């Protein structure tokens, strides 16, 4: 049976147009009705170095960047040798077994078994249609389409949309691609893979787009954010759609201003949000606690990258969980969400805005570079969403207590401008009215009541939690526990291991804190509990152990790259066997 999927990779230097070429390929696949997952490997450099973009497409539901490599577009010699080298060392990426497309000017490489070298006059062809050097990428894209047996028309459409408004450029690129397509067809053989294309166009969405779009659905009015990879993709989406969606987007002086602005916005009654990566989030730590204490709703989008400190700014990691859990002094309620894929990013962002208002406390939406910067096809999106502003006090409520001690811990809010509800909100400990209790005499009873009231909101939230998602967990002797963006790769690994006869299943954590007590049940009676996460110390593992006193086996990765299915499957197998 021929492979039913294709993995493309475009390799070159920063500034070579790797990313734009990759996006055209990705859209061509998704518009051909295929599922797509993309992966961008790049460095913290604007020009030069080595970067590549991988696009995996299939009619079957695929969930990760995958293993293997079928078609390589090498924009320079380094890319050609690197990606054909069987010992490629890019954190788990596979070497090419298939077709390599490159300009015939590249020579002197060592040929590798299993690779068909398709030296093509990319630059020559490109030159016929215009002077832009990057057009040779388009020629190569055409060739790649031919190599994988895609119809040219879809690609042609994608090119038209990509260069929309740029006049002649559209036609030039279309023609160049077409000639690449034809040239390949005439000189080389199509790969032996079957991509079951269809007319059902699929949406290809980036993680950052999903956050931005989800926020809009969730009624966002204000986003204050200071750029930081990989949280910037959401900022850019919102900035470029600000006028359309009526979202005020502000890049302020620093992250401290950003979070305080978001808090100010929420206090004034606007759904407001901020976002950053770990470094910027670190600067938000103090104000986060203020929101918790004053019970101002707040959503923070925290997208992780390789740390510590500046670390590997363009590489992924799941190393900020301790930071997010510990952020700010003292105890106060906080909700941490970790959507598992692009689609869930969309829904959970909207939900986060509801949760923040409902529980009047910070909600942290965690992602990582892998999820925030890469693209994947998503299913049809359900756009019916009910914005729930939580409990609000009515104007002129008698004896209004902003921090009324209630069985749920939730007190009706008042928004400035409302009549008869004038009150003070304070970062100092306060009584039900909002009056500070530390000024004259501190009555410990006031303090205890205030703490209990706030913390009670977490109990209320826990009661409302929906069951923790699992994957083929029934009868699993080995439970793999993952959180956030590793869902896709873990599910593919479960499938692969099951096929090999292993009794495995997965517990998927998209709500790491507070923890759903049902996880305790899910863990019971397993031969082994295997935690898979992308950091050095096993930050989630620590949380899980403290919560359920469960013995675990830990598999980590901290080289900056995401897990790859076959490597992870191997690691899990050896844990099972030992």
């Amino acid at each position, binding site marked *: 049976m021929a492979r039913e999927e294709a993995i493309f990779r475009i390799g070159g230097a920063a500034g070579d147009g790797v990313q734009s070429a990759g996006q055209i390929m990705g859209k061509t696949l998704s*518009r051909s009705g295929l599922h797509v997952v993309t992966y961008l490997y790049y460095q913290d450099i604007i020009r030069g170095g080595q970067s590549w973009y991988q696009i995996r497409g299939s009619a079957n539901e695929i969930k990760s960047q995958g293993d293997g490599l079928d078609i390589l577009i090498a924009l320079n010699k380094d890319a050609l040798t690197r990606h054909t080298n069987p010992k490629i060392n890019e954190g788990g990426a596979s070497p090419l077994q298939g077709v390599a497309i490159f300009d015939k000017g590249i020579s002197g490489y060592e040929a590798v078994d299993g690779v068909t070298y398709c030296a093509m006059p990319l630059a020559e062809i490109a030159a016929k249609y215009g002077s832009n050097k990057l057009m040779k990428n388009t020629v190569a894209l055409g060739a790649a389409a031919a190599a994988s047996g895609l119809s040219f028309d879809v690609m042609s459409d994608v090119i038209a949309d990509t260069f929309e408004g740029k006049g002649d450029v559209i036609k030039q690129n279309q023609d160049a691609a077409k000639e690449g397509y034809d040239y390949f067809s005439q000189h080389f053989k199509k790969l032996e893979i079957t991509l079951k294309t269809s007319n059902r*166009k699929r*949406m*290809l*969405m980036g993680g950052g*787009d999903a956050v931005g*779009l989800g926020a*809009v*659905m969730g*009624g*966002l*009015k*204000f986003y204050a954010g200071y750029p930081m990879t990989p949280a910037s993709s959401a900022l850019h989406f919102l900035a470029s759609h*600000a*006028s*359309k969606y*009526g979202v*005020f*987007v*502000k890049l302020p*002086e620093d992250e*401290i*201003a*950003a979070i*305080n*602005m*978001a*808090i*100010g*916005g929420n*206090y*004034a*009654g*606007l*759904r407001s949000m901020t976002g950053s990566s770990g470094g910027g989030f670190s600067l938000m730590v*103090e*104000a986060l606690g*203020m929101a918790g204490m*004053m019970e101002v709703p707040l959503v923070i989008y925290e997208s992780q990258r390789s740390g510590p400190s500046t670390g590997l700014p363009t590489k992924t990691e799941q190393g900020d969980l301790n930071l997010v859990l510990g952020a700010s002094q003292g105890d106060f309620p906080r909700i941490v969400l970790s959507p598992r894929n692009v689609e869930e990013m969309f829904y959970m962002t909207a939900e986060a805005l509801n949760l923040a208002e409902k529980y009047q406390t910070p909600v942290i939406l965690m992602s990582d570079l892998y999820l925030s910067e890469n693209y994947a096809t*998503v299913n049809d999106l359900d*756009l019916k969403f009910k*914005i729930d502003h939580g409990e609000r006090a009515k104007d002129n409520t008698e004896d209004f207590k902003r921090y009324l001690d209630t069985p749920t811990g939730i007190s009706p809010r008042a928004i*400035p*401008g*409302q*009549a*008869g*509800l*004038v*009150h*003070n*909100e*304070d*970062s*100092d400990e306060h009584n039900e009215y*909002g*009056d*500070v209790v530390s*000024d*004259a005499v501190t009555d410990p009873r006031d303090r205890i009541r205030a703490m209990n009231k706030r913390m009670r909101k977490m109990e209320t939230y826990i009661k409302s939690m929906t069951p923790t998602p699992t994957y083929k967990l029934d009868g699993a002797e080995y439970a793999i526990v993952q959180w956030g963006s590793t869902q896709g790769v873990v599910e593919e690994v479960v499938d692969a291991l099951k096929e090999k006869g292993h009794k495995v299943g997965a517990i998927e954590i998209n709500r790491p804190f507070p923890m759903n007590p049902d996880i305790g049940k899910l863990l019971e009676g397993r031969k082994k509990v295997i935690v898979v996460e992308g950091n050095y110390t096993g930050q989630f593992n620590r949380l899980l152990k403290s919560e359920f006193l469960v013995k675990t086996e830990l598999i980590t990765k901290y080289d900056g790259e995401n897990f790859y299915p076959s490597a992870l499957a191997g690691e899990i197998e050896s844990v099972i066997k030992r």
Partner: protein
Amino acid sequence: MVELKDYKGHVAPDWCPACGNFAQLTAMEKSLTELGIEPKDVVVVSGIGCSSNLPEFIHAYGFHGIHGRLLPVASAIKWGNPKLTVIGYGGDGDGFNEGTQHLYHAARRNVDMTYIVSDNQIFGLTTGQASPTSPTGLKTKTTPDGSVEKPVNPMTYALSAGATFVARAFSGDPKHLQEVITEGIKHKGFSFIDVFSPCVTFNKLNTYDYFRKRVYKLTDNDRKDFQQAYKFAEEWNEKIPIGILYQVDEERYDQVDPVVSQGPLIDREPYRLTQEDLKEFL
């Protein structure tokens, strides 16, 4: 009709007797009353410090936040709901140390709010350390041999940052103080008022007497003249001008931002996504 008593809070101020903050609280209440603004439409945002306790004592919406961060909070409140009168109130440590950067950027954005600094040249609440406006030589808990730094000049700072209303007042002259605050609130744009506010407990140098001897009122200065304002701002030591040094009409951030300028965000319905909006991802 708004009356002064409408602004009386139910918690009595717990400042030391004769603290300069009292005069500012009273002036603020009077100005707001005179201007006929209702308490429900006022938000007083503060940081942390003796002065920053003020929102606890005034009957208006109060946001008593964290040290140094009142300006970003206040900016967002105003941008979100322009119908509110937003007043920022905090100390010299709060504003010129911890919050240094926010003052510069709020000023250049010409946020439509009034920012009053209770400038006692000391950290009051933390029991007397050198503040950024402490005069050189002042002995405090952190400068037992006298402060050695050149103090911050809040006036030149605000001027260079682009504030459109820059003024100075003195708690020892409550009438004038109130006039300045009234003008500040009326001003459309970022109003910055630095108030000499003696800390009777920890600053034995910058006392009521100290300022009474030195301050003089600006009356017929040309408020639009930046250079003149800058010169007044630099006057110190023997004679210190109080009053409105500078005032100009300039475009505010809310007028130029493509989204905020479209009308109060607070009143706008959230956008409802449709399938049409998803087309860009196809």
